[in-house]
């Protein structure tokens, strides 16, 4: 009897130790950001995440536990982040809608925690002297598109709205930096891109021919914070703390009184304040920086899945409903007393129950 009891006790101890080590906190938390970013230290703008990064809120949060935070920036944007996720080189990812869907459709196991930059615009730019005046003029021209990023799908939809298919233009795959170099040197006739082009426009080197600002919200692109399922299952406490910080950043970024300061913080990434003013023109910050995965967001992600399937950008159906894991978000909102702060939008992007929170 005695040996048996010893054996049982040791087995129990071992099991507990193993379980505990599985729950043991990681020594580094790595966050991958789907953009090259800029500045020193490298940061990015256009998302509340950039605020958290610039203010070191995550590092402060985890300093007491002795956990380091590592931010990794990817010039290859969303597609490169997928490669990093696939190799478990990062635990969290800030990534656009299409690339995260592409990753999921190819078997990457992730969870969407919260939205971190909604309704980003897409622009069509050309060299200043160009004869191209509208989308229709793009037929047969060389156009730079960053394939696999969330801009890719919006570009296709924008073309489709004017009766053009991706085949009707000569699409060249160029990342953000290369696209700017190419357009300015007349290497391409036009380029699809985002806020990075305002700086070039303000230097007199390009003109914006088309903008999704003020149009159907379905023509915008979203970005979210994702986590690897494996990491989330092993470290729920750490995930909650990361979400808490991001919600705090989202709250700060949604206060109109912080508008100037927000743009200044984002300008540290190399994109000047004037560009942010242009990008967020006539839009309430709360609408862009809300972390809620509301009906609009879910509808957009489902639409992107549908479009991607139709265009053969993905080959397998992707379920959206079981992908969003909003438990952490809800807990964070409750903890910070922000449950009623942001207005959810309906599937069409219109705020439910009245205009969006707090105007100027």
């Amino acid at each position, binding site marked *: 009897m005695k040996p048996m009891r010893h054996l049982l006790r040791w087995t129990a101890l071992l099991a507990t130790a193993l379980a505990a080590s599985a729950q043991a906190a990681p020594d580094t938390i790595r966050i991958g950001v789907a953009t090259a970013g800029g500045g020193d230290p490298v940061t990015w703008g256009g998302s509340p995440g950039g605020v958290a990064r610039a203010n070191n809120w995550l590092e402060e949060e985890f300093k007491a536990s002795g956990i380091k935070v590592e931010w990794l920036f*990817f010039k290859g944007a969303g597609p*490169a982040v997928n*490669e*990093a996720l696939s*190799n478990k*080189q990062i635990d969290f990812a800030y990534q656009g809608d299409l690339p995260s869907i592409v990753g999921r459709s190819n078997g990457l196991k992730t969870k969407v925690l919260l939205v971190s930059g909604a309704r980003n615009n897409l622009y069509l730019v050309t060299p200043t002297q160009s004869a191209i005046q509208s989308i229709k003029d793009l037929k047969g021209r060389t156009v730079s598109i960053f394939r696999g990023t969330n801009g890719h799908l919006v570009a296709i939809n924008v073309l489709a709205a004017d009766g053009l298919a991706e085949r009707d233009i000569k699409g060249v795959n160029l990342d953000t930096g290369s696209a700017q170099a190419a357009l300015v040197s007349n290497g391409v006739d036009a380029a699809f891109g985002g806020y990075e082009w305002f700086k070039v426009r303000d230097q007199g080197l390009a003109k914006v021919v088309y903008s999704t600002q003020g149009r159907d919200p379905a023509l915008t692109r979203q970005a979210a914070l994702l986590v690897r399922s494996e990491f989330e299952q092993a470290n729920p406490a750490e995930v909650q703390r990361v979400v808490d910080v991001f919600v705090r950043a989202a709250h700060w970024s949604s206060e109109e009184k912080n508008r100037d300061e927000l743009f200044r913080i984002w300008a540290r990434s190399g994109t000047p304040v004037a560009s942010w003013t242009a990008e967020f023109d006539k839009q309430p910050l709360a609408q862009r920086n809300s972390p809620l995965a509301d009906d609009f967001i879910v509808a957009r992600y489902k639409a992107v899945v549908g479009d991607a399937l139709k265009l053969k950008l993905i080959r397998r159906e992707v379920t959206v409903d079981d992908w969003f894991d909003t438990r952490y978000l809800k807990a964070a909102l409750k903890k910070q007393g922000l449950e009623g702060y942001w207005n959810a939008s309906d599937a069409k992007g219109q705020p439910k129950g009245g205009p969006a929170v707090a105007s100027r």
Partner: protein
Amino acid sequence: MSGPASLSRDAAELAAVQPLRPVDRSRWRGLVLPAVAIALWALLSWLDVVNSALLVSPQKVFATAADQILSGRLWRALGASLAREATGFLIGTASGLVLGALLGLWPLFDRIVGPSFNTFKQISLFAWIPLISVWFGLGDVAKVVFLSLAALVPVVVNTCDGIRTVPPALLEVARVYGFTRWQTLAQVVLPAALPAIFTGVYLALIYSWLATIGAEYLLVAGKGIGNTLIEGSEHFQMDLVIFGMFVIGLVGWLMNASARALERRLARWTGRA
């Protein structure tokens, strides 16, 4: 397909793109063309004949060069690139020597693995980059894998070729003297194959240098001389681009020159043996 004839050709092919040494030893004549070219360049940019931000004067390139050297940026970038190359080169060469020896000494192994290897080396290494970056990530492991592959190919080809083309006369002598298998290998085959093996190793150095630049383009890199080039290109700084090209060419030339000097010394040594 993998007989000695095609391997000799492959070895010759790899060597054929290395610079030939001028028969005429007069050094000064070689400098005439570059001197004229630079003078012409300086003249054109001074006259402002071509109105373009891209035509930078030689002075500007010098100034940029001086800045890069003195501020230490050149050394940091070069150091990073060379460090990466060193790791890949060592791993690739070591595995290449083993694989090449196996192919050269074991006919059965050669018949099974040889054709596949031949086909593999036909495919540009750069085509493997997307696969490498998915399998090994975007960090240093991927880069080292890529560089090792680049170094491995010439080492395998030349080692195998060197072993195969040991003069039959030498083997005859070994048989007459009753050498065992190991003695033959160590005292006859190896020294005879050494020059070819050396060629393979020095080609590996060059190829892994070329691959280092490529890796900096296509895999996320960080610091490196290739990145200096790319940044120059993206920011329209032609002077930085020219400077970068010059540095890369210079490093390549230095590698070639030192390898040749070593080779000559080695040839003298084995000649005497």
